């Protein structure tokens, strides 16, 4: 399928860069959403979020290799990753110290542990898997949009919408929201805080696993793919204000598009720095994210 509108070269090029940026942006968004789910309920930044993404992708690849059908592997991988999320929650809840410093280091340690585990249980090689929708793509104005990218965009948006309804409309979601606003009041209302937090960790891990599975056909995966994805997804979440899944999507898009424009018009060498420059700018000048909807963590 070819969509051709303009013969204007610079415009075509700009459009190409934007489209490529949006494609990448949704990948960051999908990783970023997971951060917001845990942060929202517990105030914890989970530095092993990127490793959850890796765990989802790697589990699916190896279940496929073991001969299971794609759909079954996918669901099992999500379950495995959710259990990993619950394990992390258990570790945090049994931890003797819940200061921010020690929780940051605990999740960093868990990330290293998961990487080491993947190295032992799986292997150190690169792996890929077939896409659900095939390798096809749409041609648009001299650039392309792959079917898999469209799947990622749709799934990200569906997840955000589902999360919105979950927190707004369901009883569990309401309880989770209440717990995030005021733990003591929620407890007095008879809400089981521990259970709420556990569900949140499992949910966040499940979202990460979905991301990992959807990314693998595009980027391929190995045991350390989570490091950079985690950092970029994290930057996306911060840009969006950390507590809002929708913000993470917008943050991811801002990041992806900026990276692409810098690579296109300035220098592809400094493209990776963009995420962190934006991150600093946001922290310094808009500590609540571009929507400014959380209270600033400033003195």
């Amino acid at each position, binding site marked *: 399928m070819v969509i051709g509108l303009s013969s204007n*070269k610079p415009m*075509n*090029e700009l459009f*190409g*860069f934007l*489209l*490529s*940026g949006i*494609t*990448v942006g949704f*990948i960051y968004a999908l990783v970023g959403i997971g951060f917001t789910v845990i942060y929202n309920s517990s105030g914890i930044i989970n530095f092993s979020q990127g490793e959850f993404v890796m765990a989802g992708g790697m589990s699916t690849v190896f279940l496929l290799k073991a001969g299971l059908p794609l759909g079954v592997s996918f669901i099992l991988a999500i379950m495995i990753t959710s259990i990993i999320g619950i394990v992390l929650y258990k570790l945090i809840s049994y931890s003797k110290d819940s200061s921010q410093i020690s929780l940051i280091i605990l999740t960093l340690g868990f990330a290293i542990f998961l990487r080491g585990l993947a*190295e032992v249980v799986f292997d*150190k*090689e*690169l*792996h*890929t898997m077939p896409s659900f929708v095939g*390798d096809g*793509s749409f*041609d648009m104005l*001299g*650039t*392309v949009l*792959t079917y898999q990218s469209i799947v990622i965009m749709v799934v990200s948006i569906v997840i955000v919408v589902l999360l919105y309804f979950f927190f707004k409309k369901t009883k569990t979601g309401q309880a989770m929201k209440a717990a995030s606003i005021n733990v003591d009041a929620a407890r007095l209302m008879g809400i089981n805080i521990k259970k709420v937090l556990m569900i949140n960790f499992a949910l966040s891990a499940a979202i990460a696993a979905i991301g990992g599975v959807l*990314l693998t056909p*595009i*980027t*391929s995966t*190995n045991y*350390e*793919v989570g*490091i*950079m*994805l985690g950092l970029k997804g994290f930057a996306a979440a911060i840009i969006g204000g950390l507590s809002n899944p929708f913000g993470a999507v917008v943050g991811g898009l801002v990041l992806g598009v900026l990276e*692409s424009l810098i*690579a*296109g018009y300035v220098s*592809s*060498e400094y*493209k*990776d720095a963009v995420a962190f420059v934006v991150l600093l700018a946001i922290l310094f000048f808009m500590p609540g994210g571009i929507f400014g909807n959380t209270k600033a963590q400033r003195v």
Partner: protein
Amino acid sequence: MFKNIGLKILTFLFVSSFFLLNAGTIKIGALVSATGPASFLGDPELKTLQHYVEKINNEGGVNGQKIELIAYDTGASPKKAVTFVKRLISQDKVVAIIGPSTTGETMAVIKFVQRAKIPLISMAGAVVIINPVKKYVFKMVATDRMACQRIMQDLKKRKLTNLALISGSGGFGKSMRKQCKEVAPNYGIKIVADETYGKKDTDMTTQLLKIKNNKKVQAVLNPGFGQGPAIVTKNYRQLKIKQPLYESHGVASKKYIEIAGKAANGVRLVSPPVIVADKLADSNPVKKVALAYKNEYEKAFHTQVASFGGHAYDSLYAIVDAIKAEHSINPQKIRDGIENLKNFQGVDGIVNMSPTDHLGLDTKTGMVLLDIKNGDWSIVK
């Protein structure tokens, strides 16, 4: 108080090292990046070393002595490589060292092997390792410069004079990019576009669009390894760029074809001969050794051979041959032995060392030009 614990640990180190000091073995050290960003190099290298040391020992060792392999994983970190090289030299007292796997690590340890007078055969690619010649430092792996030269030759032959580069920003990609830019003018080739991408990037469409829109470009070369080149290749096909795509020896493994899928068809690349050992002409002097290695590796590890393990094989056997030739396990003698290797039949090619050439690899046998057709290699005639 903590110092006591420190000392206890140190004594533990000593004691454990004494156990290793059983007399009569030939201690060969190895530094491999078996984990971390260069594990795709170090992993097959370590497997190869362990497998062949065991094999040599089962067959009676070298001059009646068994080899003891002491291998450390550097995780591609020069800092760790420095610590481990000191451990190999002053604690394990090895007589020769194989590795490290990457250029940065090799450059970091050279000073120490030179000072300790222990021969080292690096498995890394860059030319700087053996140029200028350092007395105790060797390498038998084809340099990235040789890879560039081979590609430029082919471009010249096909009259494609305007080349675009899209390089990975890791050590491998950067070093090769630099070498290719240096040798290009010798073949009358102009670099008309020069893009890079990050090691962990998920999409290279933007860079490739710039290349596509550059009307001067006649061919594209992608130095890099890991998932990067596979993504470049996929994006390249998606954008329907018509110019021929060249890949480096960094992707010379079936893994690349597996990950890039159909997009890999039509790609031309340079590679050490081992991955196509079975397809080499019978007259090719490398065929026998390379094919034997390929078959043995694939049988032992149930995975397709990658070119990198061959570096470890060659380094190990060069040391073994040197020990046999000199009838000594004195590091100085082993060094002399390596320097005097003539017509050494390695997996990577024929090697003739000399005091002025510590690479010694024959360019003709060291690099082959391949096309990927129907998901398989085919040698360019």
